[in-house]
């Protein structure tokens, strides 16, 4: 029994790490543009498909496939920013939200058209390779997922807190006008943020592709969970996103004990609604009162 619980724990951490990485991409874009990008899930999907095509179809090595996924996802994100979000910079909040929903629908159905609804199986050699950690065994793929995600989270934290780019990002997020006055090129920072945020989603997609089934609509549960995590953690808060991401991963993992598996996806919503009712600003965000 203990072994089983331990397996669930580890599984939850793996899932949590993927959710966290994806949600971090979303948080970054929100922090900078004040917009929740509905199409973030589709960027994840694009990453998964890129990884699939490079690895399973073109026969590249898995690391190359992942890099390709990052590139594809980042390119998608940058394109989105240029075509959709930049023209709507000064529009009321509802406009970019609806537009991002449009992008999401567009990308899902483009993928459907181009790549057909047939689910793809993306088998890396690591999926079958089994590893023993203490008393539990799991596939190497999951181990890789966790390690890469953990590294990415650490790397992102480093970039945001210690590098010049990170400082610029935080400045633009706080006060775009002041940042511009200080000589920061807002446009470049925004594009970089989109690229990095989308790249994160792309990596998550390529890592998780072998574990999930790849189809054009795989981004939907992802985006809703990413939203749930970002809201739970507090919009724009990196620490909050990390904590909330792992909480969700663990909750879904241990949830199997209590809930039929068809309803596992609803755990995210229950947690989300609970958060919204109890502490709407999230776990870590400060209570901000709007000054009029």
């Amino acid at each position: 029994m203990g072994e089983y619980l331990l397996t669930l724990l580890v599984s939850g951490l793996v899932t949590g790490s993927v959710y966290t990485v994806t949600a971090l991409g979303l948080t970054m874009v929100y922090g900078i543009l004040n917009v929740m990008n509905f199409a973030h899930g589709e960027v994840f999907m694009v990453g998964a498909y890129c990884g699939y095509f490079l690895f399973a179809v073109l026969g590249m090595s898995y690391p190359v496939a992942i890099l390709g996924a990052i590139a594809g996802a980042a390119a998608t994100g940058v394109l989105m920013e240029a075509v959709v979000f930049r023209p709507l910079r000064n529009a009321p909040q509802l406009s970019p939200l609806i537009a991002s929903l449009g992008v999401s629908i567009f990308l899902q159905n483009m993928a459907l058209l181009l790549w057909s609804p047939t689910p793809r199986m993306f088998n890396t050699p690591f999926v079958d390779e089994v590893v023993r950690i203490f008393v539990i065994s799991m596939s190497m793929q999951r181990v890789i997922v966790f390690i890469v995600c953990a590294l990415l989270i650490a790397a992102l934290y480093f970039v945001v807190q210690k590098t010049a780019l990170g400082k610029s990002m935080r400045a633009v997020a706080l006060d775009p006008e002041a940042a511009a006055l200080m000589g920061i090129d807002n446009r470049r920072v925004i594009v970089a943020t989109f690229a990095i945020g989308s790249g994160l989603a792309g990596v998550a997609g390529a890592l998780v592709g072998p574990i999930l089934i790849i189809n054009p609509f795989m981004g939907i549960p992802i985006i809703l969970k990413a939203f749930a995590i970002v809201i739970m953690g507090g919009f724009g808060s990196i620490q909050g996103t990390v904590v909330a991401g792992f909480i969700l991963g663990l909750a879904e993992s241990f949830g199997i004990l209590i809930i039929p598996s068809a309803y596992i996806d609803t755990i995210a919503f229950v947690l989300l609604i609970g958060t919204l009712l109890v502490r709407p600003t999230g776990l870590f965000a400060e209570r901000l009162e709007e000054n009029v």
Partner: protein
Amino acid sequence: MALLDLVGVSKRFGGLTAVSDVSFSVGEGEIVGLIGPNGAGKSTLFNLISGVHRVSEGAISLGANRLNGLRPNAVCALGVARTFQKIRVFPRLSVMKNVVIGCHCRTHAGLLASIVRPAWVGREEQEVEDAARQLLNFVGLGNRADDEARHLSYGEQRLLEIARALATKPKVILLDEPAAGLSSMDSAALMSMVGRIRERGVSVMIIEHDMEVVMGLSDRLVVLNYGQKIFEGRPEAAQRDAAVVASYLGTAAS
């Protein structure tokens, strides 16, 4: 006789104390000016009175009614109206509609009545429209009734906000920098309009940086600096008060 009464009002935003232990009152038929350097907490005070922010400490009341802790619409229904420092008209609605919405809290037609439209609903709407037109004429926007609010000039939008606020039939109106962006000619017109607002039986509290406007209009001045009240009294006395002078000169020098 006190109408609007603030006792020991403080407001903290996290670690920042925006307003600290402020007490004063506005009487019936009074025009009270609220002045002080930028960031002194004046608009925050208006936000506290109108219910947009909750007080950290203290009590605000209008006559016998306690205001703090109420939502803004309840504060308005009790008789406190305001304009905003950054103009907040309803941009895509007509000038007329903006003022009509001000009358909302004084009218009664509910959902069923609005759908079925018994005769009294039509009468109420006509009354509202007449009142709105009268207010638009009062502020001088009578000929702009059908224009969209966002197409008005800056100064005209400020007047629209005043008309809309008056439509709520307030006992006290809080004007937040109504003269900002107005030419001196328009400022003079505004001054006389504020005087006429007082004549209609509405007390006025006005935040203004334009010293001519504020000195000329106010019966009393309340001066804030760094969230604290440093003076209360007649305008002439304020000009001679050392603390008041220091607060303005101090900020200018730094």
